């Protein structure tokens, strides 16, 4: 296996609110290889964004508490870093692209200032010099330099996301976290932005954690995929492995609920039920209440990730029975 840039082990993050303890992440383990892109897939509320924030140690506290585990970035544990080290790491080694470009930009600062800030902070140069660099960054993401003096509200959604990307890439980080970078954009714009990101990542030899719920995006951009449910990874492997030999019932459910353009007329099969209340997670496998294959055993213990060959891992009790096949695979 190639060298890892990010290794998360047994991460547990809870939000201790007045209403109770929200168990957002419950023993999450994943890793991203150097110059690789990992897609993190899951429903809304699965804990994807929290995972991303944990990597930057930015889980809002209070109420968020990182209860345990480790997050190693290039071999250094983020959770053990001092404030100084964290500030140095953020933006410089790891950058993040946020979901909604409409709110991710500070409305009262010009985009140039916002890009330049990152450069100024990490390269200790004057604001003026940083601003010049910011203009270059804008050009790189395909925006005219002259628009550096404009404010975010003067840009369209796609343009703003380009600005956000420019901010993220300003200091040439070697790891990029993209939290649903295209969700808030029009479909036509989505492709442009994705292409841009892909291009820049390849050019700069960066690694990326791409958070999305769009399996199409994953197929297009990612080398590996991790499927997340209720704060845990349920299936992880190379894109090829996960797409072609899906192992987890939840992953199957995700694929089934996608419209398939090739086979018109096929009915969509939604996953029944809802995500469990993160304050009252069910005992055992958290997916069990919704799982068509669930057995008595599923409600007893939490399934561990087990190797299914290659880099493919799955967390499901069903594979205790070696003959078990998902319906999807049985048919295909």
């Amino acid at each position, binding site marked *: 296996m190639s060298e890892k840039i990010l290794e998360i082990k047994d991460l547990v993050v809870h939000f201790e609110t007045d209403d109770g303890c929200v168990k957002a992440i419950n023993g999450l383990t994943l890793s991203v290889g150097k110059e690789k892109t990992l897609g993190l897939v899951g429903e809304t509320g699965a804990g994807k964004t929290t995972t991303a*924030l944990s990597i*930057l140690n*930015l889980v809002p506290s209070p109420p968020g508490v990182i209860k345990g585990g480790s997050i190693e970035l290039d071999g250094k544990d983020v959770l053990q870093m001092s*404030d100084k080290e964290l*500030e*140095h*790491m*953020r*933006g*410089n080694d790891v*950058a*993040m692209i*946020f*979901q*909604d470009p409409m*709110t*991710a*930009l*500070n*409305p*009262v*600062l*010009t985009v140039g200032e*916002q890009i330049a*800030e*990152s450069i100024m*902070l*990490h390269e200790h140069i004057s604001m003026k010099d940083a601003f010049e660099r910011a203009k270059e960054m804008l050009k790189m993401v395909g925006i005219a330099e002259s628009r550096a003096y404009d*404010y975010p*509200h*003067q840009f369209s959604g796609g343009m703003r996301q380009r600005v*956000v990307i420019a*901010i993220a890439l300003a200091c040439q980080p070697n790891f990029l976290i993209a939290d649903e970078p295209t969700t808030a954009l029009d479909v036509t714009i989505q492709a442009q932005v994705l292409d841009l990101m892909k291009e820049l990542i390849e050019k700069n030899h960066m690694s990326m954690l791409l958070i999305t719920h769009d399996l199409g995006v994953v197929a297009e951009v990612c080398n590996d995929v991790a499927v997340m449910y209720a704060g845990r990874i349920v299936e992880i492997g190379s894109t090829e492995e996960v797409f072609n030999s899906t192992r987890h019932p939840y992953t199957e459910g995700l694929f089934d609920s996608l419209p398939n353009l090739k086979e018109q007329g096929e009915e969509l099969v939604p996953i029944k039920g809802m995500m469990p209340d993160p304050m009252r997670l069910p005992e055992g496998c958290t997916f069990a209440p919704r799982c068509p294959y669930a057995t008595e055993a599923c409600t007893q213990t939490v399934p561990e990730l087990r190797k299914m060959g290659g880099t493919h891992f799955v967390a499901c009790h069903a594979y205790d029975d070696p003959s078990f096949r998902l319906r999807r695979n049985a048919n295909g």
Partner: protein
Amino acid sequence: MIRYVLKRLLFMIPTILLTSLIIFFAMKIAGGDPVKQILPENATVEQQENLREEMGLNDPLVVQYARYMAGLITGDMGESYVTGKDVLQTFMERLPMTLALGGSALIVACIISVPLGIYTALNQNTWKDTTGMVFALFGVSMPNFWLGLMLMLLFAVKWKLLPSQGAEGPEYLVLPALTVGLGLAALITRTTRSAMLDVIRQDYMTTAKAKGASHRRVIYYHGLKNAMIPIVTAIGMQFSLVMTGSALAEVVFSWPGIGRLVFESIDKRDEPMVTGAIILCCILMSIINLVVDLIYAFLDPRIKAQYSNKG
């Protein structure tokens, strides 16, 4: 922008017209007989009649109002019944004093409130939050005049640190400004707190943190710059509160400002002075509101864009 300012100035005209109309007639009703005020009590009926005719008081009220408005346009707002001085001139003499007091009170209030508001916001729902808010509410919980007297007794009489009365130097401004400022602190702290609470949950704050900006920088550069918009709005909206506070402090500390002028004129029923001062106050406040709006535009590029679009 200039067109916007002009438009706003034009909008002031109906406001001023209506104000003058209301105040003029109100004072005519409440003001009593000016002739009796100007002349000594033992003046003859003939003298009274002569003066009444001379002042045009026998004309219908509408005519008197028209005459007043004609004067107003040329800057002639009549003369005080009590001192015989020109109303506009007297007001303009007092205006700098009130602006100085109101301005320094605002500065005092901001110095106390903005950090306090941020502090309470960052510690929301903890005992630090409650204590901070109680502290901020201290000034607004007691009448201004009372607070002023207390401060005076402590700082001027007991410790003899500051002068108790008058307006002869910067040090004379301290106690009145503190009195008014403490009264405003609650409002500004509250606004700062809720603006900060709002702002710290915004995505761009996370963006800033993810860039590697320090906690201080995130709060004071990114956060405060955004929070300033509602804070400035609140101050602008409540400028009448500043004037009210100043007016009372002016009485307590013998500060020769507009508030005291108005109260004393009302007390002496100096009708032209009261009418004039209130109309001028109205104009002043309209201008202040305009300035606040412009500052607001300065702080929030989105608003600025709106203005330039409109005109």
